[in-house]
Structures are given as C-alpha cells and as structure tokens.
C-alpha cells in the first residue's frame, strides 16, 4: 500500500512511514480529499476517527482510516496554522466524518469547507473560543 500511495501521490506526501499496523502520511490540504478517496477505493472504508493535536507551534488534523479486511490503519496528518485554519470536508467521502469534523471545529476552530452542518457540537452555541487550543 505504501508503494502504491507513493507512486500515485509522489511529492504530495510530505512524509510517509510504516509503524506497525499504521501507515503514517502527511499531506497538504489541497490533496486531502483526493488521497482519502483513493484510500477508500483501496478498501480503507472505515473512518475510525478525525481529531486534531495542538502542539503549541502548529495544529495537526489527524484522520484515521482503517481497512476492515486487512486491519491496516492509514493515519493522515495535515498541518494548519493554529488559528483560522481551513480544510476541505471529507463528508463527501466518508459520511461518518460529519460529527467528528464538527467536534474539531468546536474544540479547535478548524473550518471545514463544504461541510453540510458546521456548528458547535459539544459546547453551547454562545461559547467563545476553542478550548482545546493551548
């Protein structure tokens, strides 16, 4: 799978390594949807998680896609500025991305372009700020 991805996406993968069951990839926002769709076509059909990590210097949105056939994980990271970050939504690829993307928006302030219903989900609508930012 790693070779296939490298052949297909080449320079768009800023980093790619295999750690145990996980294929850890880094890509840019512009190629995210394409990469996710490619993974889904390769039977990585289970969207296990969408979340983000604020390291203090940058914000990383992390997608975990799992193949129910092989048990392999693909972990895609996209780096964003810590405020005002925007990403295309993956709702068109995985419908299960809708709620966790709302959560990432709610807690980290990342805006997902094309999301059908981008509102706060855990916090109240009048909450100020995004609490999981450092």
């Amino acid at each position, binding site marked *: 799978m790693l070779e296939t991805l490298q052949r297909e996406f080449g320079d768009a993968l800023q980093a790619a390594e295999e750690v145990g069951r996980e294929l850890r990839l880094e890509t840019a926002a512009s190629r995210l949807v394409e990469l996710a769709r490619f993974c889904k076509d390769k039977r990585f059909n289970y969207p296990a998680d969408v979340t983000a990590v604020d390291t203090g210097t940058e914000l990383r949105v992390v997608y975990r896609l799992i193949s129910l056939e092989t048990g392999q994980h693909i972990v895609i990271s996209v780096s964003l500025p810590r405020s005002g970050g925007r990403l295309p939504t993956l709702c068109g690829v*995985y419908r299960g991305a809708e709620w966790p993307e709302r959560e990432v928006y709610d807690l980290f302030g990342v805006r997902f372009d094309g999301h059908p219903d981008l509102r706060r989900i855990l916090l*109240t609508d009048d909450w100020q700020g995004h609490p999981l930012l450092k």
Partner: protein
Amino acid sequence: MPLGNEMARSLTPTEHVTLNMGPQHPSTHGVLRLKLEMEGEVIVGCEPVIGYLHRGMEKIGESRTYPQFLPYTDRLDYLSSASNNVAYVQAVEKLLGLEVPDRAKYLRVVLLELNRIASHLVFVATFANDLAATTVFLYAIREREMIMDLFEMWAGARLTQSWVRIGGVAKDLPGGFAERAREFCRLLPKRLDEYDRLLTGNRIFRVRTEGVGILAPEMGVDYGCSGPTLRGSGVAFDVRRAEPYEVYERLDFEMVTHPTCDCMGRYRVRMEEMRQSVRIIEQCLAELPKGEVLAKVGRTVRPPAGEAYGRVESPRGEFGCFVVSDGGPQPIRVRLRAPSFFHLGVLPQMLQGWKIGDVVAILGSIDIVLGEVDR
C-alpha cells in the same frame, strides 16, 4: 406521547411539527435531546443534540500526569469502565514500550468480559423496560448485581473500578474470587435461557423489534459504526479479532454477527455475546498463569515523544484512545474515540420514516452511553 400526536393531527398534513424528546426523558438513557421533525406520527427528520454531560475530559487529560488521568477514564463509558481504562493504558504502554506480565493480561480480560456482561445486562434490562417488559428489567439487574458484588470484592468499587494500571492491574485476585466467578459463569447461561423464553420469542417484543430501525451494513461502516450495532448488520468486525490485544488471540470464542440489520439483530448479538464472554472468563480462570500482576514502572511516567493509539472492543464498539507525548510527564493530547458518538451520528438515518413509538426501540438498540458521547 399523546400530546405530540394530537398536535400533529390538528394541523394540516403538510405542516411539520418539531417535537423535543429529552434532554430529560427516561428512555434517552441520560441527558440527550432529540429534536424530532414529525409529519403526523412519522419521523421525517431528527437532530440529536449532545453535550449536556460535557466535562472537558480531553482537556483535563492535558493537565494531569499519565497515572493521574486513569480514574477519569472510568467516567466515560461508566457501564464498562474497564474498557476505557484498558484503551488508555494500552496507548501509554505502547508509548513506553512496556511489556505487561502475562497474568495481568489474563486478569484484564476477566475484568473486561465481566464488564461486557454487566453492560449487556443493563442493555437487556433497559431495552426490555423501554418496550414495556418490566419483569426482564428486574431479572437482568438481579444478575448484574452479582457482577457488581464481584467487582466490589476485587476492587472495592462497583462501577468505576480503576483496577487497571499502567503496566498491569493494581492487585491480584482476592481469595475466593475465582470460585464465585465460576459459579456466576455456571448460572448466567441458564438465566439467559430464561430471558429468551420470557422476551426473545415474545410476540409484542418481536413486533416492535423485527424489521425496525434498519442499518444497512455499508452505511454502518461508512458512518464509523462498530460493535454490536455493526455486527447486528452482519459485518464481521470485532477489535478483539481484528487487532487482538491482551490475550484474546489465545482464547477460543466466536465473533457473533446477525444478518437482519434491525433492532432484533442487535439485541440477539448482545445476548449471544454474553454467552461467549462466559466462555472467555472460564478459559482465563482455568489457564491463569502464575507470576507478577504489575510491571516495574517508575514513580514518574515519562514516555518518549511520539503518539500511540490504543483500541479495545468495548461493549458498545471500538473505544479508541490516541495519546500524544512530547516527552514530558503529561500528555499533550488525549483523544477519546467513543463508539456511541458515531452511533448517534447515524441515528437520524435509522429513524427516518419510522413512527414516534419506534424511536425508543431504535435508540435503545444502539445502546449509547452519554458519558462517552459528551466526554
């Protein structure tokens, strides 16, 4: 809900009525609000409103040391606290590269499976109760009480045991525990037969669950569903098999699936899973190796910088824990991936076109716990 029906009837058929179910409603099993869009009695839209129980668990994780955060995880899926514990310590142990003693792994499985039975018993109890079979509620809670007593004997606590530690479990089994656990394992299958006679074949119960609340397998996977909710749609996915942890690869048990995709299918999966859990516990107690139950872990836990994902098959599905370390004594990120969160995401699709009375059955059949949804 007679009021809703009457209101719906008095309006023109084209006009929709919004009906609030919850946040305080006995059959939402916690603080959940469903905004239902009704056309007469039929549901044409549903928006689950969550967050009422949000305690900022993931944020708390960033300001506690690794061992300190462990008891917090009990309060996520509080019907099966050991699953949360194990997912969390798994991630930390992966970061540390720590090997857990064999005996501790077996004891963790005993704890996990007892939790699974206890949780499924609550499911059977509340599901039956929601569908007006109160007797079954009392029976199932009676059996669950025996497990609670076992937990009390072992850990001192009945619900939030926190018995798992980074590197193993806190203490070995107390004397007499294995005998009592075996006795429970002998008794439970007989009691499950009793529930089957009382409930599974019951005409009313069948009418209210068979063919109701269809979740197509592809849709379930696409929405990130897991656990009995997905296996009730015939998808053979169980983390215990897909990515065996502790000692599951050495144990003989069946992954239960049911092809009907309806409320009955999900109920049947959980009923059969309890029997499989009994088999697992019996095997663990029989094969339990001698030795330590806790690996040597320093006073301060400082995993090297990196990230790890721990995942377990909780009674509700895949419970995941994603921990990121920068080498300090506290994690910089603890992400808690709760199965119920994803199951609530697909609920509006499952309710589409069903009547108001079916909401209780369909919601009950995905067996959510709001503690892990809201975190």
